[in-house]
């Protein structure tokens, strides 16, 4: 057992070297040994996959003393591809070793009928290229579709990684992986993950709102990581469009309140510029701010959302308006103006006070 654990402990090192300049000194026999290790690790994965305790032990050993993104038991199974692709992209590998690499990775193995996985990979990549951007002038913009499918896929991979870790009883929870993922990409992927999970679990829209208050398990873990630090949530919310955040808040009530709170926070930083007659950012613009237009758009997304969210947003705005003196005049309180102009919820007809450009879009009133 100790030998096995020691062997497995070599995996992070092997992967790190394969990506580094150290491969400069590799000759073909070294390369063969590395690939053999890769296959051996894959073999171990196959052998112990069905044994939860061993899996957990191996997974924990893999994570020990690691810098950067932690490894897991699944890495053992993917080792030949991880190693092969890393070496293929490593220009430090000398020609003789590289020649050996290409032959063992790509050429048909003599006597064996099993084709390498790389032909299939190249083919699937071409398939994605062919089928992804709608080749005709389709209504949706191709880039968006690409992004969406790519995000969904990344979200699924993230999900399976989180599930792998959970099975190995990763003590840090999802944080161990999430902390090390590239930002801001991780936030978009998380949104896709939450959306996908909500879609999978919701039998109907109403049911999901009423019954799954905590959300499904991986989603709940991800959410609590997201909500665990104000900075994270703030970047998450700034990055994603208002409509998506409202859709997520509808499915995950624990997200709705902090998001609304963030919005009012952003709103309170806006100052009215009497010269231009507009709400503008404070004098020293920091990153954590939102323009008036964006704020208005985000609130109107709430108004178009499901009733509980709409009411919560309205109540919050009305409450803040009261705190600001409950004036019915434009330009005094950002909350009054939001209610009056942007959301079309007025208490008197005061269009004369408002700039013509800010006439409320009455036709967009929800319900």
């Amino acid at each position, binding site marked *: 057992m100790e030998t096995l654990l020691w062997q497995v402990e070599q995996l992070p090192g092997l992967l790190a070297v394969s990506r580094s300049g150290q491969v400069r000194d590799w000759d073909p026999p070294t390369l063969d040994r590395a690939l053999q290790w890769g296959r051996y690790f894959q073999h171990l994965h196959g052998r112990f996959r069905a044994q939860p305790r061993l899996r957990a032990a191996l997974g924990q050993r893999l994570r020990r003393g690691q810098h950067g993104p932690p490894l897991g038991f699944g890495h053992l199974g993917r080792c030949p591809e991880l190693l092969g*692709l890393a070496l293929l992209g490593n220009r430090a590998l000398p020609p003789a070793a590289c020649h050996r690499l290409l032959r063992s990775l790509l050429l048909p193995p003599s006597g064996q009928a099993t084709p390498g996985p790389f032909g299939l990979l190249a083919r*699937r*990549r071409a398939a994605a290229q062919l089928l992804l951007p709608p080749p005709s002038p389709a209504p949706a913009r191709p880039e968006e579709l690409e992004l969406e499918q790519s995000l969904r896929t990344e979200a699924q991979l993230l999900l399976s990684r989180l599930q792998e870790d959970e099975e190995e009883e990763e003590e840090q929870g999802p944080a161990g992986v999430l902390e090390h993922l*590239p930002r801001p990409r991780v936030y978009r992927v998380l949104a896709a993950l939450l959306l996908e999970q909500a879609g999978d679990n919701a039998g109907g829209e109403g049911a999901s709102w009423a019954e799954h208050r905590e959300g499904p398990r991986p989603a709940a873990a991800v959410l609590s990581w997201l909500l665990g630090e104000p900075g994270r949530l703030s970047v998450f919310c700034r990055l994603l469009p208002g409509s998506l955040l409202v859709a997520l808040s509808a499915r995950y009530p624990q997200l709705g309140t902090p998001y609304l709170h963030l919005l009012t926070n952003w709103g309170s930083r806006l100052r009215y510029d009497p010269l231009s007659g507009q709400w503008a950012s404070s004098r020293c613009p920091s990153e954590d701010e939102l323009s008036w237009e964006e704020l208005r758009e985000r609130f109107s997304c709430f108004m178009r959302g499901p009733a509980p969210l709409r009411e919560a947003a309205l109540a919050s705005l009305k409450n803040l308006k009261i705190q600001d003196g409950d004036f019915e005049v434009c330009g005094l309180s950002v909350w009054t103006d939001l209610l009056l102009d942007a959301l079309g919820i007025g208490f008197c007809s005061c269009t004369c006070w408002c700039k013509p450009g800010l006439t409320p879009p009455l036709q967009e009133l929800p319900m």
Partner: protein
Amino acid sequence: MAQHTAVPKLSFQYWLDKAVAWGQTTTLESQQDVCLQLPKLQEFLQQIYESLKHMNSTTALQRFPLIGQLLGRLCWNPFVVGYDESQKTLMWCLCCLYSNEPQNPVELKANSWILSLLCHLLSPSEWGANKVGTGTFISALGYTSADYYSKLVKNIVLSLVTELKGNQFNGLNIQGRVSDDHVNIVSLFCVPLITLPDVTPLLEALLTYHGGGSQEVLSSEFLEAVNETFLKKKIVLSESAVLSLWLRHLPSLEKATLHLFGRLISTQTSSLEEVACIIKESLLPQAACYPPIFRIVDEIFKNALMETGGTPEVMTIIQVFTQCFIQAHQKDNKQHKFPLKAYFPHHHQHLVIALLKHPFDLPATLWSQHLKYITDMLKAIIEDKSVRSYTDLFESWFLFVHFGEWADIAVEQLLKSEDESSDTFLWLLAFYYNPNSDKEQRTQILVEARAVYDRLMMLFSCTTLSVADLQAAASTKTDKRQPCTKHLVRHLLFSFLLFSSGGHKIAQEFISHVILASNTTNEVFGLLIRTAYRFNQLGLKNQRVVKLVNELLQELRFMD
């Protein structure tokens, strides 16, 4: 070396010009052209690889100076990379060109170029201006592009399938119904991907998708390629998808029927069960439950029958196909299914109904009576002077061929029971083997058949017989026997061997004798497997005659 000359230089220029043209425009015409050329290109790439694997990279570059340009361009063409096994061959060629000891800057540069091409083929692409960092993200997660693309393709396929089924997609954006043009292009873009298993659900969704108008929305390249691949058994498709393909694309149905026919003729089948199995596997009997499909398949059979001049093999195929079709029709649980007789639009529906009765729907004691009924009707149609036209006669004969098991039973009845209706049955057999309208000719056949039959009946009760006796009984004074008469006589002789006690004993000897002398193995073998199949269907197992049939079959199989 011979292998080197196997790759003509001209082809390099030809394919390079093609690759350049494909790379420059993305018009529908150029995409259709790629799809059409893909099989030939794959063959060419395979030839190049066969040559390259015996050379080092310097020699290869000297011999094929255009190879770099060609491979480089092809690696950037997703149609080519996506097609069947082309991507593997492309990568193998690149491997062969990589030098393990680069001697000069050119080779160094070539090596680096090869690596970038391979990375391009295998790494996540950074789409256009959206450098979103998918590669970094998945590698931080500990996954590779192999994991990523496997899931990505599934997602894309699923979302296209959902779109085609008209459902709303519960994703980041909600999509409406797709336009016909879009579907057409998706179908064209699927052509290279047909053998990729991930794409199968999309193929099925496309095949069962019908646009708003009456015009075909799928590209004909797609329909042809799917059919071709299905017939080669390189993909497995659901029955409904295949039916939908044949219903919407006539050339595919024709090809499928001819393919089945070709397979049945060319395969050495050792039993009719095997033939029935091949027929069912083709899905054509199931598809034929749609009357338009039945009509076309039947028409093709009719042509085959006419072109071969009514060979017994073709007649047997039609007979077995009809049985498989009737079984499929009985299994078909559709609410509004057509009655069986509607598939055989013959003037005389009574005849159709009588023929549709399978022998095992009736007790054996009624066979003779039923056969008489059938024959009388046929005779009335054929000999009715007012409507005698060739087409009429042919249609009636063709209808009877579908139910050829009744002809076998007629012979059996002739020998087993000394029936007073032997004239009737002989007439039916003469008709079965010779649908000629010439009355004189039929009379001639009948006279000869009657003579042979009478002689055989005289030998029927003899317990000891010699081959010579039997040969004498079957012989004729004139040598001008028609081929159809020969078929008929052989059929009579064959049944005599099975059903008479004397014949039984010399059956093996006689058959090997007759076969050696007259080179009619196929015909006798055909009669044997028909008989074995019928016995099997009737559930006969332990009777002497069944054993004999099996022994004879064994022997003939051995002789092959």
